[in-house]
């Protein structure tokens, strides 16, 4: 295998408390090592910035809803065709790139690991098949468990088998972790077009409440010791006043490890239906007092996006705003899904406020280890907009210029005009885009450059224009192989599939089988994914 010595670069490895130290970095057999032989290939990184490969903790890149979004966005994709070459497969780009293009473009951006954050377990075959067709990056997926009727029954009955059931589900699907999306609320919407007003509302037909679901599943995942804690998309996304729900959800999970997804969409003050305002500062205060919680921001970026969510109710609300293309879809027993193309406009009060709230979450002094970068791709914007977002965080002058273009009334309702002079350092960017997500995902070999870590390394020109710098890395190395040079893909390889696993009592099958028989149209025996081509190879991360 290749040996590489990267010489003279400024190393930004916050997980190992290295902040810009100029020294060599050695790679062998896919790992970072102390030293390599004289025959090693040398990469001259003088004047460049060296970071671990990027880790995206929350994006939507595979599975039925992503496929549905691709189909719905034929008009967006046809403007961005990708030609086949000797090395690359053809495809289409746009907001939701085809599978191959997704792998290529993440790699070109210097990202080496991406988490698909919302996969219906019933569709695990589909998700795995697409992820196998998404080259370059290492990838994992989280399974949707917050509106599962079988789990509702176990929770209602106070079943001792809940933990085993969750571990069984991960084993059955190859998933990495557990996701809750609008817990209880999607089921309520599917039944009766209902919405959750309080975490203590009863989910009709099951005699359980969202609070019980959050509490039970959060505790079970915490107790199992899975590598990634419960990943929560709280109730009432996008609704004015939802910060109260978010805080209530956090209180419900007090003392247990949890990750809150796209917090920006859950940080609103005001009354439902009325004007929104920001409650980001309060949420940051709560986070500061609760080191057991982390969040990703879910920044919205002005321009085109497409909302792809398991939160089916949100899609019907957005559809009514826009009156354009829209899709809702049911996954039996487990979840819903909705797709609505959407454009965030700088002049629009709500959009500008959402943009401002995201920046507040980044800039108001939160601990970067707790507040990670995401746009909830493609919901708040494409992953291709990360470099622009990084520039907003690192370059105050640029930020103020952009602030000046956004709806004035909205920006006045944020803290962004209060002489907010914070500029992220390169190390802080390295934290929010790789070190913190890797740590939070329990990926010990990723997100850092210590000896023994995966040889996933991104090297950037140290350019003043941070957007340009982070858009086109000089080199991207993954698993010890040089994949990208100056914006060109040099080598194509399959990334790893990452699965999470916790031991469970196999007798749980006897509990689940009759419940499956009552609800699913799929036989219990056919549910688990066994196809070797889908399951292997995988790197399994065990519970601890």
């Amino acid at each position, binding site marked *: 295998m290749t040996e590489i010595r990267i010489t003279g670069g400024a190393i930004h490895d916050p997980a190992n408390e290295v902040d810009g130290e100029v020294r060599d970095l050695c790679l062998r057999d896919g790992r970072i090592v102390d030293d390599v032989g004289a025959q090693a290939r040398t990469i001259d990184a003088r004047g460049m910035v060296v970071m671990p490969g990027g880790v995206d903790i929350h994006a939507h890149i595979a599975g039925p809803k992503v496929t549905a979004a691709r*189909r*719905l*966005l*034929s*008009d967006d994709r*046809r403007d961005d065709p990708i*030609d*086949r070459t000797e090395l690359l497969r*053809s495809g289409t780009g746009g907001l939701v790139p085809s599978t191959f293009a997704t792998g290529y473009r993440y790699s070109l951006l210097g990202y080496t690991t991406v988490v698909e954050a919302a996969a219906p377990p019933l569709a695990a075959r589909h998700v795995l098949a697409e992820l196998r067709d998404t080259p370059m990056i290492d990838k994992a997926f989280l399974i949707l468990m917050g509106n599962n009727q079988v789990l509702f029954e176990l929770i209602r009955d106070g079943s001792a088998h809940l933990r085993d059931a969750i571990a069984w589900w991960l084993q059955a699907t190859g998933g990495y972790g557990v996701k809750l999306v609008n817990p209880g609320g999607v089921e309520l919407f599917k039944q009766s077009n209902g919405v959750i007003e309080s975490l203590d509302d009863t989910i009709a037909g099951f005699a359980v409440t969202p609070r019980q679901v959050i509490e039970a599943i959060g505790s079970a995942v915490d107790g199992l010791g899975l590598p990634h804690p419960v990943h929560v998309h709280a109730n009432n996304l996008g609704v004015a006043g939802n910060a109260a729900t978010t805080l209530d959800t956090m209180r419900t999970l007090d003392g247990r490890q949890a990750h809150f997804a796209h917090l920006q969409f859950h940080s609103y003050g005001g009354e439902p239906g009325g004007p929104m305002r920001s409650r980001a500062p309060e949420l940051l205060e709560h986070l500061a007092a609760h080191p057991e919680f982390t969040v990703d921001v879910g920044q919205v970026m002005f321009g085109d996006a497409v909302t792809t969510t398991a939160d089916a109710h949100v899609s019907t609300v957005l559809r009514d705003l826009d009156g*354009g*293309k829209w899709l809702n879809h049911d996954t039996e027993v487990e979840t819903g899904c909705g797709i609505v193309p959407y454009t965030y406009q700088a002049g629009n009060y709500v959009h500008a406020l959402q943009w401002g709230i995201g920046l507040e979450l980044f800039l108001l002094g939160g601990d970067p280890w707790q507040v990670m970068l995401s746009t909830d791709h493609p919901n708040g914007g494409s992953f291709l907009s990360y470099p622009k977002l990084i520039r907003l965080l690192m370059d105050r002058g640029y930020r103020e210029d952009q602030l000046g273009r956004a709806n004035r009334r909205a920006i006045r309702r944020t803290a962004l005009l209060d002489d907010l002079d914070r500029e992220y350092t390169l190390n802080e960017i390295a934290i929010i885009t790789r070190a913190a997500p890797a740590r939070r995902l329990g990926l010990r070999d990723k997100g850092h450059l210590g000896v023994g870590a995966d040889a996933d390394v991104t090297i950037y020109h140290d350019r003043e224009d941070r957007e340009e710098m982070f858009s086109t890395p000089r080199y991207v190395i993954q698993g010890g192989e040089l994949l990208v040079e100056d914006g060109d893909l040099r080598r194509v390889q399959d990334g790893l599939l990452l699965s999470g696993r916790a031991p469970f009592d196999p007798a749980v099958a006897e509990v689940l089988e009759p419940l499956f028989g009552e609800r699913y149209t799929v036989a219990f025996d056919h549910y688990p994914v066994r196809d070797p081509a889908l399951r292997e190879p995988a790197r399994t991360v065990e519970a601890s």
Partner: protein
Amino acid sequence: MTLTLTALTSPPARVDLSPLVPETTRGRSAIEVAGTAIRCGRDRVGVGELFAVSGYGTDELVLRGELGRIDRIGAGMRGGRLRVEGSCGDHVGARMTGGEIVIDGDAGAFAGAELRGGLVRIEGSAGASAGAGYPGTRAGMSGGEIVIAGDAGQEAGAAMRRGLVAIGGRAGDGAGLRMLAGTVIALRGVGAEAGMGNKRGSIVSGRPLRPLPGYARAVRYRPPALALQLRRLRELGLEVPDAMLTGAWTRWAGDRLELSRGEILIFDEEEVAAG
């Protein structure tokens, strides 16, 4: 001498000729143009492998020979003149914003699809979806004119938002499907299910027609605006009978599923015969 491309052989796969428009060939020699890469199926080939190139690039570009598998001629064109001596493949003039394309023969499917501006003239017939929006598009054609001397296939002007699709012959089924606005005129009549889901568009049929149930008969009159449009069609070279300029038309309002703000105008020969 005008830059002229003559097809040498029938290509092994369909060809995307959109890189060659007057704007990109102007000022370039035949040799330079012959070296331009174009897509043929999944591969890229030099223009010179498929065409004999002569002359020098000006505001006009001429294509000759067997062009049935040559697609996207003049697609995205912004100005100048493009002449096709014969028949051509699909997507001719798609999404063009200005200039003029003249096709002496027939055009394939999606001629002038999602046109933004300019003029596409087809002396023969057009395939399906002339002036239509592509699948997945809410708003298709947004300006310009498409003139078809012969017949048009199915779904002419589907999803159009502005502009004119003028057909000297007959339009196939589904003309003006999901139209937002704009005008589709077929002097020899339109096929079944014209104007389904039409919001504010006008569909003009020179032959009798039983509109869909979503349309209600509104009035019989001599619409002055239509006479102006028909005169424009004459300017564009279509043969418009005098009777249509002076005679009465029946207006049907619809589609009721979309609040009945659109219309189908049907030439009323009986009235003329009586008058």
